[in-house]
């Protein structure tokens, strides 16, 4: 398991924000903008954790989480959903789909890195 965190996020600003915060706190970050690319990257480099947005083009976060969990070699890689979906059951659906954690957007820069560390 490498020290790199994988962020799957199609919004460039959000990706930038998270990457900035995490890199400033000593993490190395790989960012991809689609689910498919995320799965490929995860399988190729096996990141330390995966931060997964839910609303993604082509393949949504639930499907991506489910796909990732199908791979045994990724079983111990935590998936942390970072989402602006706050409707009923969203949190539960995400966890049911295979995510290990859930961080609601907008992320709080004061607590974000601490929250990520809880899942590592």
């Amino acid at each position, binding site marked *: 398991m490498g020290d790199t965190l994988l962020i799957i996020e199609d*919004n460039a*600003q*959000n990706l930038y*924000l*998270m990457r*900035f*915060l995490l890199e*400033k706190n000593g993490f190395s970050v790989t960012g991809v903008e689609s689910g498919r690319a995320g799965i490929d990257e995860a399988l190729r480099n096996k990141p330390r954790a995966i931060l997964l947005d839910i*609303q993604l083009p082509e393949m949504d976060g639930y499907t991506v989480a489910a796909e990732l969990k199908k791979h045994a070699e990724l079983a111990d890689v935590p998936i942390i959903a970072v989402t*602006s*979906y*706050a*409707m*009923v*059951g969203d949190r*539960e659906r995400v966890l049911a789909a295979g995510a290990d954690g859930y961080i609601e*957007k*907008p*992320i*709080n*820069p*004061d607590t*974000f890195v601490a929250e990520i560390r809880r899942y590592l």
Partner: protein
Amino acid sequence: MAKKWRADSAGRIKFLIAIMLLAMSVAGIQSAAAGNRLVTVGVYENSPKIFTDESGKPAGVFIDVIENIAQAEGWNLRYVSGTWGEGLDRLKNGEIDLMPDVAYTPAREEIYAFHRTPVLSSWYQVYARKGSGIRSILDLSGKRIVVLERSVQQDAFARLSGGFGLNATIISLADYRATFELVARGEADAAVANRFYGLRHAAQFGLEDTAVMFEPSDLFFAAKKGENGDLLSAIDARLVPMKKDPGSIYHQSLKRWTMEKIAVMLPGWIRIACFLTGGIILFITIWSFLLKRQIKARTRDLSERNEKIVAANRALASSERKYRELLEHANSIILHWTSDGRITFLNEFGQRFFGFSQTEIVGRHVVGTIVPDVESGGRDLKPLMDKICVDPKAFERNVNENIRRNGERVWISWTNKVYFDDNGRIEGILSIGTDITEQRRVEEELRRLNLELEQRVAQRTVDLAAARDRAESADRLKSAFLAVMSHELRTPLNSIIGFTGILLQELAGPLNPEQRKQMGMVQASARHLLALINDVLDISKIEAGQLDLFPTSFDLKSSMEKSIALVTPLAEKKGIDLKLDIAENVDAVTMDQRRLEQVIINLLNNAVKFTEKGYVLLSCRNDNDHYAVSVSDTGIGIRDEAIPALFQPFHQVDNGLTRKHEGTGLGLSISKKLIEMMGGTIKVQSQWGKGSTFTIRLPKGMMNAE
């Protein structure tokens, strides 16, 4: 019955008399069959001088005398029976030759001839019932006196009573027996009779002789004047020696008929007849007595019945009057009509109702008077009426249209009852009718309104269904909108809050104080916007029924400690003491932890926000089947009038002091709704200027029961 019996006995007596008369005439004929000269002699009843004996033969002193003379003279005697008067008339008419026992009077000498030597001399005497009180002639005043018709004593008594100035009523009868019977029955007070008869018969009639005795008279055989002089001479010639000779038949006869009781030797059959008669009489008497009693009882019974009948009749008349009044004035139409449709009676109410008088309506046919040919609705009533006439029973209840004299159509509900006469033929139909025109109109109106209402309801249902569909679709739209908006609003907020945070952390380089201050203001605004979005989302979810609770078992005490920890930075910043007071027996519960914490944190945040000094206390008590969680503060408190609106959405207590406190105004509203969803309650107690206490009561079993 008693009358019949009396009539029967009277008939029997008449029968007996007829037999006697027959026997007498037979005896007469037998006597006339022998001898040379036929001498007819009258016989009447004046025992013992002359009478008819039990065997039907003439007997008595005069008979003994004349038979003795006839025997000596060679006469054949023939007797003609009759009353005294009849005898005198027969003598006058020459039907008989001699009439015995005739008293000489100058008047009679004009009509009759007498011999010289009287056969007997007699006094007349008055006889009365025993104990009558009649003693002297004067006692006869005002009394009813019976005398023998056309007898000497009739005139003699008339003279006598006239002489004493008696005001007696004189009744004359044809024979002595009848006179005594009359007195015995009490229909007369006294009878006048010659002593011969009186002495012999008074006792048997219950009469006694009185001291009134008068008019001695000589009694002869009389002949018709100018005829039978030889017979009279012969009588004289034979009578004189007879009267002189004490042993003669004359004296023997006198002795036999006056001095001695006749030794009556009744034949056996007569005694038996008498015994039987007595028995019959006794029986009749007893029967009569019994009958009388029966009749009395029956009469009493009948009179009682009669009284009852009279009373019943009176009651009947009164009840009939009542019923008639009822019939006439009842608020119902009472109609009587024949089976061929003719009206025979219509009560007063009916007459007023239809507008006809009794004389106008009686005899007319129902159709064309009170029943129209055709109903307004088009139903032909003629066949209906005919059907009712033929079979009224089948139409015991019938509603049809009727018509008033003024042409007004009315609806009547009829009850038709058929009446039969004694022979089982239909005598008539009694119809009782009630005007239901108004009722029908109201019913019609009601029906119309109902129909209208139904139509309206149907239309409204359609409208509502459409509205519901629209609402449902709108609700789905709203949910979708909120989901999208939530996401779309959060995405830019992510940048704002995130980058502001990064800048303020000076990760991208140092800020000068002014930049730091401004960046702080941006961050505060962004956080407020985020809170607002979160609250709106919660309210929407709750109101849309889309907020589900996810109960889990957790430790209430540690959950509270966590909540306190979250609020601690703010409290410390304001210098407010945060206290926690949890009872020993508070432990694990099953609830939606996140939502409960949301509420508690909200209350704690509020408490800290509105408290400038003092403390905020979170306490928890185990209260039987409830947990009571309270958040108390020493803050500004809430005015009484503001409390009712406290839990309404978008409400924030508006006063000068609180204006500076940020908040969405949705926190308490959401908290209340969440607590209620969990089956609990939330209440507030507050004193203005002193602080507030919010208390949540949660049922321990709430989540388990779900």
